[in-house]
């Protein structure tokens, strides 16, 4: 069974990694690119499928040549068999729509049609959560979002999933659809390996993939818009209907703040704490 996982490189927003200029704009050159943290959940879902149901995993991304490292990182996590990078200048500055068009075309061009396509739940930079569902729309597949548990029945040609209704952890439903299908993994996704044979296979795959990830370029295919037979007018910046009107930086927290220290143990002193907090509780 062939599965495809979509991933994206994003700026590493962790403290100490990310760099902003004086105006609060991200300094792209000084900030390392990492795999979108939410994609890890898609990777774990794909890995579970590979371990439990076998088959190959293709990891695909669209982005600049520097994304190879992101794909390598992904290969280590998902034990991917093949890597695809959709990359050229014409694809640059795409919004979610143009990205979805490009990525969907990439998936359709694969020799082996995937039974499952996995995407993560929104990226750390754009935060839209559009690309996955739009790609699915282009592929015309049934889609299950906010997936927290997954079980594929290859013989019956179905996938059954537990999902959060409206993304709410309080409400969980179980749904089933036919393969091929598109799955968006929720950050709450938990892979389950209840059989010893699954865990043993997982160990085998991990060992195998260590070597493969070292030589990841040997497993990488780069496609440009010509390979995909895509009209530059419909991809990249030109193909993007989104217009960014402006960006307002989030004001920094003031360096100076007023603090009231109440160092007390007895009742009147504790009363004072309540009095102080009262104003905030009232919303003033």
């Amino acid at each position: 069974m062939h599965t495809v996982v979509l991933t994206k490189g994003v700026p590493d927003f962790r403290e100490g990694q990310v760099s902003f200029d004086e105006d609060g704009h991200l300094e792209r050159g000084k900030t390392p690119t990492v795999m979108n943290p939410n994609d890890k959940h898609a990777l774990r879902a794909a890995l579970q499928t590979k371990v439990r149901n076998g088959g190959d995993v293709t990891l695909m991304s669209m982005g600049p040549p520097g994304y190879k490292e992101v794909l390598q990182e992904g290969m280590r996590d998902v034990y991917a068999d093949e890597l695809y990078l959709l990359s050229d200048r014409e694809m640059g500055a795409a919004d979610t729509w143009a990205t979805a068009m490009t990525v969907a075309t990439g998936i359709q061009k694969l020799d082996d049609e995937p039974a499952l396509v996995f995407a993560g739940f929104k990226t750390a930079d754009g935060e839209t959560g559009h690309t996955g569902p739009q790609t699915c729309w282009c592929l015309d597949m049934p889609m299950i979002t906010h997936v927290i548990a997954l079980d594929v029945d290859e013989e019956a040609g179905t996938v059954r999933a537990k999902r959060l209704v409206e993304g709410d952890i309080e409400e969980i439903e179980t749904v089933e659809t036919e393969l091929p299908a598109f799955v968006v993994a929720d950050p709450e996704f938990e892979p389950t390996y209840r059989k010893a044979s699954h865990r043993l296979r997982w160990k085998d795959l991990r060992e195998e993939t260590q070597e493969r990830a070292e030589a990841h370029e040997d497993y990488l295919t780069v496609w440009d818009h010509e390979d995909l037979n895509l009209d530059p007018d419909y991809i990249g910046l030109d193909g993007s209907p989104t217009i960014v009107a402006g960006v307002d930086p989030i004001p920094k927290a003031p360096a100076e703040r007023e603090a009231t220290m109440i160092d007390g143990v007895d009742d009147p002193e504790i009363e004072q704490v309540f009095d102080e907090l009262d104003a905030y509780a009232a919303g003033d």
Partner: protein
Amino acid sequence: MTEHEQYEAVVVGCGPGGAAAAATLARSGIETLVLERGAEPGSKNVSGGLIYAEESAPYTIDDLFPDFREQATERPATKNYIHNISGEQVATFDISQLHHHDTEWADAVLRREMDSWVGERVHEMTRETGGGLLTDVRVTGLLRDQGEIVGVEMAELDPIEADIVVAADGVNSELARDAGLMDWEEPEEWFQGVKAVVDMPPEVINERFDIDDDEGVAHLFSGDLFEGVRGGGFLYTNEASLSIGTVFHLDSIAAERAEPHELLDSLLTHPLMTQWLGDEYEEREYSAKLVPDSKKVAHESPHRDRLVLVGDAAGQMQAQGPIIKGMNHAVTAGALAAEAYTTAKSRGTPHDAGRRYEQKLNEEGVMDKLRPTSYDIVGKLGETDSIASLTDTIAESALGRFGVRTLGEGVLERLFSSPRLMAMMPDTRTPYVTIPKIIAEELGEPVTDENTVEPPELDDRIGDLTYDVGDPHIELIDNSFKASGTAVTACPVSAKDFGGGCYRDEHVQTNGSEDHVVSLDTQPCVECGTCAVVADTHWEHPDGGKGVEYKDG
């Protein structure tokens, strides 16, 4: 019964016993699954530790795992001494002869390194059979079909059926208890050991112990430096560290309300240690373990249905005075259990392996070593209270002292070097405390070096350990001080005047009356099992990969 995943053999625990069983099964082409609850083999294991290869043993660990000594051990123990101590008086005997008796080789080991190396080999060998080694899996109990043991149940996996289940799950074996073969009742049946691994560069070790890179020393300590608690201390040289520890009878720790970490400190701060520790030292890891006393608990029939017990799980730990051998017996037992299954299978009666295993333990002389008949006669008699106090009085008397002087160092050294004599040593104060003390007083020399080392406080020792805290795995059934108070002192990570340990001593006021109780916080637990014996608890291991993780072990 529902359809379960099946393996021909399931081995629970990847210490030396489990590894030996798995390797031997795999050699016969038997599909073998090994389940280890640690994040890596060795991460849950503690030993003193010297591992022996006995000349008389049918299997040794380097037979089963070629290159074992090159890859997985520290230094060989090439010199052996016992120090009899009374205050600052020390009489040292060379007991290399005792040590070399029936010994092909004996090496110091650190368990994390040793077991993880062995574990890799086990995985390679068992994977070829269709099985393999899985870590982070805790076997919680036995799978039964109409009352008969047919497999194992786990926290992390669905139940698995097997034709043979080898329980090599250590001193606190949940499987041995589930099968009703072992219990956790009598403190007399156990020792408790605590150990500190001390950092030391190889060249400093060579200089201070006067040895070369390929040599090592084993020192044992007995006498009055442990406030009369029955037991002793040890020091073994590793490649770039020392293993220094103490081992005591658990009933003695409980009765004296002794604090194990303080007993260890008594050894570390004795003037005798100055020559080896210098002015100060760096402690790398503090660890603790229960040790079964095979003389009393080595199971004579360690099997039931498809289950066989090996190693500590079967009480197969020989601790007779200065003879402390556990891992080698576990290796032999594991391999014999595997051999028994292979034979049973070839005769078409695979479920009859247990009986054959028991037979092999006897035929190969393992049971004689674990439960010497001489101890059965002399030891048990000597342990009756009236005789114990009589022998202690005689030894302490002018007559006893005269005897020690008359025998002199040469004869005593020979007596200490007799494996037969050591095997019948009773578990009383006399051999552990009184005789060494008198020997030191009558024949010893004062050691006047000033010991300036400051062992770390208990909370530092606990703080240096690595934990992945899971759900609480121990439950206090009776929290009254009367039922469970001993745990406050006997637990190696608790102390009477320390609030950060597992067990605390509390007085609770309720409606005018005061209750004396103990409270339990399993957060710093090192899973030694002491409280399972001395307190009233429901004791389980933490789930796979959770709990304490030893780096040295």
